[in-house]
């Protein structure tokens, strides 16, 4: 798969504040990439910097094989985006917005249908609700068949049905080869659609990985209940397992070389009676939160 976007050592300061600190990552064509991080992490700033919207930044952005320069956006003909808030003229109707940017009627109608915007598309945008504006903003990012679509917190203000519409729309287009960068702090929403996750904290990339690997990482946590938890924990720790007692249960995290298939007979051989065992299915959200916490404590250490 070819890469569509490469960000290398991107740094940006506002005054004395280092908002982006040597951010580097690569995005492959056709992928849906989640940009995840807490408020103020620098997600929107990264997106704007990618588009060359800052007169000054250091580092390199290569889109589709061409280097992006400040004050030269010619490389972005094929990029659609919604950053921070939908870009809407209150005095135009939804449909007029489409006409402003595109001449392809079929294309326009398709997006309107997909996001169920038909009943208000002829009203002036100034009368739109938050979610209606958001959908219009998303739709405007999608039209004109862009190769890359950048969506900053697109789920903002969307009801559950619209959320589903948005996910369908993203997945459908990703299948056809459109690349997406989607930011959010509602991680669980993002987890349903993204292929890759880039975790940002304090202007730094904390983690860049495939979501499937994250899920896998999660698969190594088990909770055990035994007749004698204290003894069992001792035995596990003494034999190279990572284990601790939490809420009267033993929580075990297996390393890559350890398997549950070996763990159970091992305990039984040591005379431990196991009364219950289950596999932790922490949701993706808590994994990321955990990773964020770890990255923060690393910084402090």
């Amino acid at each position: 798969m070819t890469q569509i976007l490469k960000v290398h050592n991107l740094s940006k300061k506002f005054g004395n504040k280092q908002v982006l600190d040597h951010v580097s990552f690569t995005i492959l064509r056709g992928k849906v990439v989640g940009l995840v991080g807490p408020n103020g992490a620098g997600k929107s700033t990264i997106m704007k910097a990618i588009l060359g919207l800052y007169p000054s930044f250091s580092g390199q952005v290569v889109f589709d094989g061409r280097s992006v320069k400040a004050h030269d956006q010619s490389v972005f003909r094929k990029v659609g985006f919604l950053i921070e808030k939908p870009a809407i003229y209150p005095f135009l109707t939804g449909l007029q917005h489409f006409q402003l940017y595109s001449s392809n009627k079929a294309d326009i109608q398709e997006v309107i249908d997909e996001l169920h915007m038909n009943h208000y598309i002829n009203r002036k945008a100034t009368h739109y609700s938050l979610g209606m504006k958001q959908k219009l903003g998303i739709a405007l990012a999608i039209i004109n068949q862009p190769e890359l679509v950048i969506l900053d917190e697109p789920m903002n203000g969307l009801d559950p049905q619209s959320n589903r519409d948005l996910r369908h729309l993203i997945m459908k287009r990703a299948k056809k080869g459109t690349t997406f960068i989607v930011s959010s702090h509602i991680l669980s929403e993002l987890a349903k659609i993204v292929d890759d996750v880039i975790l940002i904290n304090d202007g730094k990339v904390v983690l860049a990985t495939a979501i499937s690997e994250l899920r896998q990482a999660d698969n190594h946590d088990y909770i055990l209940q035994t007749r004698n938890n204290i003894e069992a924990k001792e035995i596990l720790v003494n034999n190279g397992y990572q284990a601790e007692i939490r809420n009267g249960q033993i929580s075990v995290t297996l390393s890559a070389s350890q398997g549950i298939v070996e763990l159970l007979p091992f305990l039984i051989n040591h005379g431990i009676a196991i009364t219950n065992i289950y596999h932790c299915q922490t949701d993706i959200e808590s994994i990321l939160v955990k990773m964020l916490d770890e990255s923060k404590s690393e910084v402090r250490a």
Partner: protein
Amino acid sequence: MADILRQEFYKVWHKRSTVYTPLVIFVLMGIVGAMTIHSSDARFYISAGFAGFQWAMIMLIVIAANTISSEFEYGTIKHLIVQGNGRTLVFLAKFLVIGAYDIYLHGLVFGLTLILKPLIYGRRFAFNQNYLYGQSLMTNLVTETLVDLLGSLIIIGMIVMLACVSKTSAVAIATGIVVCFVGQGVSELLLKAAGSLSVILKWNPFNMLFLSNEWSNPSYDHNTLLSLPSLIWGNVIYALVFLVLGYEMFKHKPI
């Protein structure tokens, strides 16, 4: 460039103010005309477009400031820049649209004057009648239209610059309107107080606002201390300086 200009005109076309502006100017000019119906100075009011140029200038100040500030306010500037291919072209497009609006409004006032004159004065004061400088009333009106258009450049330049500096359009609009109304007075005071410094101070930007006055009344050079050609050049150069400064601000304006 063609694309971004098309978009700019699309927006102008769909703004409600675009419909109201000519109506408002027409009504205001009509009021001024009605008040002067028995005036002995009717030909002056005709050649001055029934004060329509002043109203048009106020409208233009509001429109020019808003067309720049609102893009930042709505967040649409990002799309203009990315799809319009850079800040320079966006700035140029904005300037061209404002310039076109300026020309349109002057044409409008000219046209409305043609319509209003017979409505107000009937058959009196024919356009081919002689007025100032041995020229016809029509020639005087045309000249006034063109000179006012030239004089509006410096105001446009200032508004564009202020709109690029400040976050909202309010500052640019307020300053613009104040300058239009009291700018000349400020310059007069400056020059009166200046004494020997007036050699330099006569080049102050407010003094340039006398262009149209001096054009129709050459003895104004006693007040402005500048010859007509100097005033013309002053207007053009100040307008350019303001625009260049505005462009620099625009290039670095945070989004």
